[in-house]
């Protein structure tokens, strides 16, 4: 029974880890932090596997847990002093380039809108499942999504017009 659960979790982990990582990365912007948060989400998922395996979208459970963990970690480390340059750990290798401006705009969105974006875009959940995962009404999911899209669209339009001005 224990072995079955472990095998089941391993399959789930392999299948969903990268999607969860991308969903969290879009929200936090830091590759290493995103990986730590997703790992934490999976550790908690494994600890509560009997419950999580029955969840309508276990990957969404992990993403939500990771995003909530981020909030509690930032509260806990609010007063920490950042490392000075000389003590900073070396990066393991070149990081893929992100559309930094757009993702910065995503990170400015309220948490609920970011959650909706993460679940809809990166986990491909439909409105009903997203609503079930977040514990809100489907109409509210739509409202959050349309507000987020409006904000991001405004950013994209201004970005395009800036580029056009630069080329002329």
């Amino acid at each position, binding site marked *: 029974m224990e072995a079955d659960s*472990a095998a089941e*979790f*391993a399959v789930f*982990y*392999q299948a969903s*880890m*990268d999607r*969860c*990582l*991308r969903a969290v*990365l*879009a929200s936090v912007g830091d*590759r290493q932090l995103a*990986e730590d948060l*997703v*790992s934490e989400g*999976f*550790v908690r998922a*494994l*600890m509560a596997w009997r419950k999580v395996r029955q969840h309508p979208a276990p990957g969404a459970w992990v993403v939500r847990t990771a995003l909530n963990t981020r909030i509690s970690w930032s509260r806990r480390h609010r007063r920490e002093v950042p490392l000075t340059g000389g003590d900073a750990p070396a990066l393991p290798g070149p990081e*893929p*380039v*992100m*559309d930094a401006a*757009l*993702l910065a705009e*995503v990170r400015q969105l309220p948490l609920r809108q970011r959650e909706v*974006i993460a679940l*809809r*875009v*990166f986990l491909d959940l439909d409105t009903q499942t997203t609503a079930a995962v977040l514990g809100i009404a489907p109409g509210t999911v739509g409202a959050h*999504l*349309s507000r987020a*899209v409006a904000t*991001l*669209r405004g950013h*994209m339009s201004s970005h395009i017009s800036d580029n056009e001005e630069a080329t002329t």
Partner: protein
Amino acid sequence: MSGDEATREVLGAVKAAVPDIHMHTPVQHIVSAARSRRRRRGLTRLAVFAVAVAAGLALGLSAPGSGRSTPGAQPYGAKLAAWTVRTGAGGAVTVTLRQLANAAALQHALAEHGVPAIVHVGDSICFQSDGHPLPGLFRVVTHPPGFPIVIRIRPAAMPHGSELLFSLTRISGAVAYVGQELIRIGAPVSCLHPRHITPARIRRRARADCPRTHPSRFRNGTKLLVHD
């Protein structure tokens, strides 16, 4: 462009903005982290259980019905006791009440500390039923506000042939009110529910007991206000 198309375009841009990255953490790390956390949680639960059992034992030792009497200069023993009685260096007896438990034992402990007293626990407040209580209660007993309730008694100030009558009431197990009288030993005592105690009785008692409310201490135009 329709709303749906715009939404698809924006969401597609967001999806494309995040690179195709992969988790580097192997599943074995996740599994071992969860295992060690479960183990720690088990140990924590065990420790909490052990502390709860120890606390239960400690409370059991000082549970209701087992107050503590510490004569002489001995320090307070169990601070969790329902009540403690202690005699200080100047001969003053300090009673600390946390819970109303074992009134008979408290009465006995007071007697051992040289304070003849009747301790009544219940919903009612007791009085000497014939005539007035003895004057000078304020010289014998002081009772500062706060919790736990602390009563300081000076046995030396008690008139010869007198005893103290304490009425203790409780709300949800905690001591809620302390009434006290200085009465003749053997005087008849009756107890009344607070709603049956008339302001006239309280006025009469206040005039007899307390010099601050004695008529001779009142300035012109002032009077004692007693709420029903």
